[in-house]
């Protein structure tokens, strides 16, 4: 038996509300602390308790931490899903299950190593409380996996105590249970030939393990967001809740007052409208939502665009259409976000592809919203927002906030014939004033109806057109200000691959695989709309462009074809839209297949 070090996928099947989340976290984080690159994905149902949930952990020394199709080690605590779970396990993989579970026929015929575990008996040793048993049973498998993988007790126990953050009884009972599992494994499973091992290495120096929603919340916190209005919706809720809990502490003044206003609104129409009012009044303001909420914000989005109001709308995408699958991931809101609202409206869209970028764009989005005086839509997704991503420790921002062209009373004194909607600098970006500015020229009347450069009501064709043509120019200016794409050129390649957002996670693995199979590709990851000149250049250079995205209709490909008509004919779509986080195989399989290359 040859050992397999630091390269395995564990999946735990259970039901939600059963408390396995913290157990899974402990395994994940312990591996992370051993310096092994890891990723964790929680596949949960859209209800509160009692339905199937799966948690997968991938540990991989090369840093391939995306989801992977075949599970090496499967912990089957949910007999209901066992039948559908068995096929997920790799040939020769390992199945841990409660000994009383009757395995389906498929388990018998599959090439599997089966480890029946006396969970009940073991947890009985840990506690007499029925309520606690339900929770602690999860620590049994933590202990067993810890022993099988040879995660040191020290690391595991430290992680447990961090997880239960000072709560001594909880820590003690969890460690006790964990060790019951551990001991059981030591005594009973050593001879089974379990090949996977976690070995301490040093790949995670300077790294953190975090979800994108928390990262985004931190970005907004350090980026100076002063106003948040939101209406709860999965999977964006945790972003605002994280922001609120940090702000609760870190925006609190010594007299107990708060340097932030957070309002849970009555619906999404109100949430985005509040942001409009707050942005107008001078706050760096934002709202967060998901698909249905995005649609409800359509009318107001047009007001931001046309009235030139700063604001950030953070959309954590889930599977549509309509209510869709609220707890599954997708990138299906791209087209809606880009042209959200009737009439000629188009938005600046940021596309974070990592936890670092969630943190960074939390700040950039506010800077751009104020600089460009417009709505900035950040499109994250459930995979990026709610799963566990490795990231470089976030860098403390040193640059001041970019607040754009705001005229104070003093500056107004100097300004000759100031007009709110006039292009003074040739970049399409006008100057604005804030309510309360003590100057007769400061006041103007913001409206979503036809207005002239002087912000006066108009139905005059030229006056109207002047303003909307300037808005087009401003959108051109945005191209020079939005985040530039990530580009990885491959000297051997003449074809290119374009992706964005959470598709970045499996990309390195996919590109490496394709290169090794004879399909080297140049790679560009778009981080924003409008497309910057780096995108122009990349598109021009490739002989064929594969656009990989997580939606059915190839929405990014549509936008690319539209913006690069000369290149439209060479654009091809690679689509994945089943609601599950993207794997490397989702990318390389169709491409290698099509090129007649085999794995």
């Amino acid at each position, binding site marked *: 038996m040859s050992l397999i070090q630091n390269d395995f996928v564990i999946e735990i099947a259970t039901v939600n509300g059963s408390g396995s989340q913290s157990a899974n976290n402990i395994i994940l984080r312990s591996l*992370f*602390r051993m310096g092994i690159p890891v990723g964790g994905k929680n596949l949960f149902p859209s209800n509160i308790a009692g339905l199937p949930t799966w948690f997968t952990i991938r540990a991989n020394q090369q840093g391939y931490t995306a989801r992977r199709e075949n599970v090496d080690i499967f912990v089957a605590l949910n007999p209901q899903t066992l039948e559908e779970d068995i096929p997920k396990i790799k040939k020769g993989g390992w199945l841990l299950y409660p000994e009383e579970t009757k395995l389906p026929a498929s388990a018998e015929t599959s090439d599997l190593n089966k480890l029946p575990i006396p969970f009940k008996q073991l947890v009985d040793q840990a506690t007499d409380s029925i309520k606690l048993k339900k929770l602690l049973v999860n620590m049994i498998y933590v202990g067993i996996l810890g022993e099988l993988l040879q995660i040191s007790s020290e690391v595991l126990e430290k992680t447990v105590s*961090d997880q239960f953050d000072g709560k001594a009884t909880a820590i003690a009972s969890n460690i006790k249970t964990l060790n019951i599992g551990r001991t059981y494994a030591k005594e009973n499973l050593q001879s089974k030939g379990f090949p996977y091992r976690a070995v301490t290495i040093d790949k995670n120096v300077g790294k*953190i*393990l*975090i979800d994108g929603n928390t990262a985004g919340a*931190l970005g907004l*916190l350090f980026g*100076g*967001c*002063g*106003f948040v*209005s939101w209406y709860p919706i999965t999977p964006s809720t945790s972003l605002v809740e994280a922001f609120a809990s940090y702000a609760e502490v870190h*925006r609190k*003044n010594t*007299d107990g*007052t*708060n*340097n932030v*206003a957070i*309002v849970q609104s*009555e619906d999404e*129409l*109100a*949430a985005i*409208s*509040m*942001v*409009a*009012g*707050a*942005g*107008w*009044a*001078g*706050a760096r*303001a934002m709202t967060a939502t998901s698909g249905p909420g995005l649609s409800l914000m359509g009318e*107001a989005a047009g*007001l931001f665009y046309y009235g030139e109001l700063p604001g950030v709308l953070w959309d954590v995408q889930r599977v549509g259409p309509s209510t869709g699958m609220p707890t599954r991931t997708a990138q299906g809101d791209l087209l809606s976000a880009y042209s959200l609202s009737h009439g000629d409206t188009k938005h600046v869209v940021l596309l974070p592809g990592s936890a670092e970028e969630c943190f960074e764009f939390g700040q950039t989005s506010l800077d751009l919203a104020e600089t460009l005086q417009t709505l900035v839509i950040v499109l994250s997704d459930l995979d990026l927002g709610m799963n566990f991503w490795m990231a470089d420790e*976030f860098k*403390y*921002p040193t640059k*001041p*906030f970019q*607040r754009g062209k705001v005229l104070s009373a003093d500056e107004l004194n100097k300004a000759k014939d100031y007009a709110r909607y006039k292009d003074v600098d040739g970049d399409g970006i006008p100057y604005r004033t*804030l*309510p*309360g500015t*003590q*100057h*007769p020229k*400061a*006041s*103007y*009347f*913001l*409206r*979503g*109806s036809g207005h002239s450069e002087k912000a*006066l009501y108009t139905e005059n064709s030229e006056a109207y057109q002047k303003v909307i043509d300037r808005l087009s120019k401003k959108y051109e200016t945005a191209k020079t200000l939005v985040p530039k794409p990530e580009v990885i050129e491959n000297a051997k390649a003449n074809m290119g691959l374009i992706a964005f957002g959470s598709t970045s996670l499996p990309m390195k693995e996919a590109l490496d695989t394709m290169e090794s199979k004879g399909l080297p590709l140049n790679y560009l990851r778009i981080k924003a709309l409008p497309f910057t000149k780096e995108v122009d250049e990349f598109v021009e250079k490739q002989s064929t462009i594969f656009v990989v995205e997580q939606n059915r209709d190839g929405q990014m490909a549509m936008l690319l074809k539209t913006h690069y008509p000369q290149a439209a004919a060479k654009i091809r779509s690679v689509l994945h839209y089943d609601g599950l986080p993207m794997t490397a195989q989702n990318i390389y399989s169709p491409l290698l297949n099509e090129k007649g290359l085999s794995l």
Partner: protein
Amino acid sequence: MSEVVAGQNKIGLTKSEYAGSKSTLCTGCGHDSISANLMTAFYQQNIHPHNVMKLSGIGCSSKTPAYWLNQSFGFNSLHGRMAPVATGAKLVRPHMLALGVSGDGDTASIGIGGFMHLLRRNLPMVYIVANNGVYGLTKGQFSATSDQEMQQKSGKKNPFHAIDICSLAVDAGCGFVARTFSGDAKQLIALVSAAFHHKGTAVIDVISPCITFANHDGSTMSYTAVKNKNHHLQELEFILESAESKVDYEEGTTQRVKFNDGTELVLKKLDSRSHDVSNADDAIVLLRNSRAKGEILTGLFYANEDEKTLVEVLNLPAKSIGDMNEADLRPSAQTLSNILENFR
């Protein structure tokens, strides 16, 4: 207080400095009277336009903030969204006075959700409903405040109950609820002046006839109808200090509503039904009965200075969020490191 110069108010502004652009409403529209009276109230109350945020939705009524206080900051937003827009703006600049003018369609039809939740939150602002019982700007369809059996010009009758802005507001916990008529300068100015000093949301339902689509026989909101059906509950006088009241009222016939800044609204009871305006139950029953009778009862219905406002609930500091910058909004580098410790 600086000396007062003739033709100027106490802050040295002339009435013309409270003017706005020329109205584009129909000649004779009630909304224009509201604008005129608002201007007077701002002038008389010595409120500097620079310190005012004026907000609106969409409709003939919502156009009016363009017609007064050109030197203030206006936001003519979206149909039905004045309430949340005002919420965002006011929280960011709590020191400014926020006054909104909405229509009955804007408030009671498409905007009813925002309106009710504004009241729940008690956002400090003056909320004026310029109520004509129709959608003026879209040519006279019934709105949610149209009285049942009210007739359109075509003779078509409204089959549905009216939503009563005032009883709704009282039940939702609003601490300043009044009704008046656009043309009643005295009552309107007194109410608006008092509303400026109320700590939370002040709702004033202003019956404001639409001369073009609801001024015919059969309209229950025509000028004639208002003339015939308007019953003043009280005579109102707004005073800056207790001592200031010009009128000496008989004991028992007056009630004084005191605001936290020392100003007062003196109510002289005119109607036998005149109730204690601190009693919400009585206010609601009074409003319901008066509605059933088909009259238009005007005056102050409910006053309560005790409820926390949203600014208080959120415990906002003296410095406006709208004036904050890195020093106020960006925690330290150490804070970031500490936070990140939890993600290792």
